[in-house]
């Protein structure tokens, strides 16, 4: 059963439409006129400049979640033949959790008028790619290694948002609830790739002054990583909080 056929046709068409870098820039330029949208066009190169404050931060997390769900969608549509039933059960669970994270952020955008509809559409239009060199979805090892990369990235990035979010009412607790579950995902994917690597030294420093601490990434660093997978569209967060 393909877990992945979750996006509506409309969403897929929109993604295809916006996947063209030139169109994306044109769309982004239209939004300039709207004033204080959380997402603004970067000048010159095709791209998206994320907004400021909590709106920009949650937009950034939304892109991370779209990156994750896009991968699981691709990996589960025609699952690699050597994935076991147990592997698939885990991947389907994780996919559902990530979809819930992603769509909960849309609810937060809408219900608090935090991010307006055209901007949500723009964020939903970023077309992530999963190049086979990094994401070999035709083999068990490739799928799990890709999932490991995505979940470790998500954990480190969410850790980096903790000090930057200002609203303690909904935004902060929601991100921290996601972080706990993403750390469970990351450890599980790591164990599936290599048993016992759940908190290995490339995820949790084992020596030095940071020993025992999970990796942490600033939005700028995580966006640099994401930009490897956006088909040339450059995501920037120059207005995101840094302290």
């Amino acid at each position, binding site marked *: 059963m393909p877990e992945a056929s979750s996006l509506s046709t409309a969403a897929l068409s929109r993604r295809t439409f916006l996947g063209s870098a030139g169109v994306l820039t044109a769309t982004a330029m239209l939004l300039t006129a709207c004033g204080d949208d959380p997402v603004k066009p970067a000048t010159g190169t095709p791209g998206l400049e994320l907004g400021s404050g909590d709106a920009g931060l949650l937009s950034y997390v939304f892109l991370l979640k779209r990156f994750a769900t896009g991968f699981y969608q691709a990996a589960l549509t025609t699952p690699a033949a050597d994935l076991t039933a147990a592997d698939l059960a885990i991947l389907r669970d994780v996919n559902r959790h990530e979809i819930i994270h992603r769509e909960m952020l849309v609810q937060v955008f809408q219900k608090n008028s935090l991010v307006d509809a055209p901007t949500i559409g723009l964020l939903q239009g970023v077309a992530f790619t999963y190049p086979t060199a990094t994401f070999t979805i035709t083999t068990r090892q490739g799928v799990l290694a890709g999932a490991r990369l995505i979940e470790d990235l998500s954990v480190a990035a969410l850790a980096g948002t903790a000090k930057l979010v200002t609203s303690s009412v909904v935004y902060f607790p929601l991100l921290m609830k996601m*972080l706990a579950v993403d750390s469970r995902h990351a450890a599980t994917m790591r164990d599936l790739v290599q048993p016992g690597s759940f908190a290995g030294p490339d995820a949790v420093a084992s020596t030095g002054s940071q020993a025992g601490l999970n990796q942490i990434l600033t939005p700028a660093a995580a966006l640099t990583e994401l930009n490897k997978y956006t088909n040339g569209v450059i995501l920037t967060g120059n207005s995101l909080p840094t302290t």
Partner: protein
Amino acid sequence: MPQPTERRTALAQLARTAAVALPAVLAGAVVTPATAQRSGTLLDALLLILRVEWLQEAFYSRLLTAPTVVPAAIQPDLALIRAQQQQHVALLENVISTSGGVLPTRPTYDFTGSHGQTTPSLFPDVFTSADTALAVAQVLEDFSVRAYQGQLASLMSNNDLMDLVVRMYAVEGRHAAHLRRLRQQRGASVKPWISGTDGDGPIPPATAPIYAGEGQLEQLATVSVYPPVKTSLVALLPTLPVLTDAEQKAAATEAYDEPLTTAEAQRIMALFVI
């Protein structure tokens, strides 16, 4: 616990010079007197988290003391977890001491949950049965994730402390998932994430308090609406593929871990303290 005046004076004096004495990762991660002197804020959050780490560190140290019931194949995993708990303890003790906080005396633990044989044992074979030992380990890790989460908001005033503690919190989630996987491989019916209230945990009813409140099907989305309106998580799942009601509810509850309040965390820790 020192008296408020002592707390305030010590913190005021030491916080000024704290940064230079700390390793780079802790520079700036000091409790400022303004917040440390109030209960329910920064220092209390750090002390509660330290107690959670002490509890776990003591458990693994006792569990791994020869002769241990833990199968040889998984001893390295538990040794890594213990090492990381010890690193957390050292970092927390360092930041609390450097900030002028007074470290409490470490409690004496009874992991059978019998409070030194004064009450019926909750986990009588905790150090003689590998299955019970791993069940208690899982419970302590899940507890840690939820207890940390309950304290995080208290750290929002200090960026460096937040960075420090949230990175430990993520490591606790990794430990919890791994313990669950180890148990699954021994035949336990458990996922790496908490599903519903997990049948009140691996050893009900003793473990029920650790999982109470985890079965949330809704989350708060609105910041300023009163009364608060929660969003159904099941409704966020796609309509295709068709999932059973049970699958939808499982996914909804698994997607988010829930915090424990300070009082809940203290009550749970008291199960293991003499």
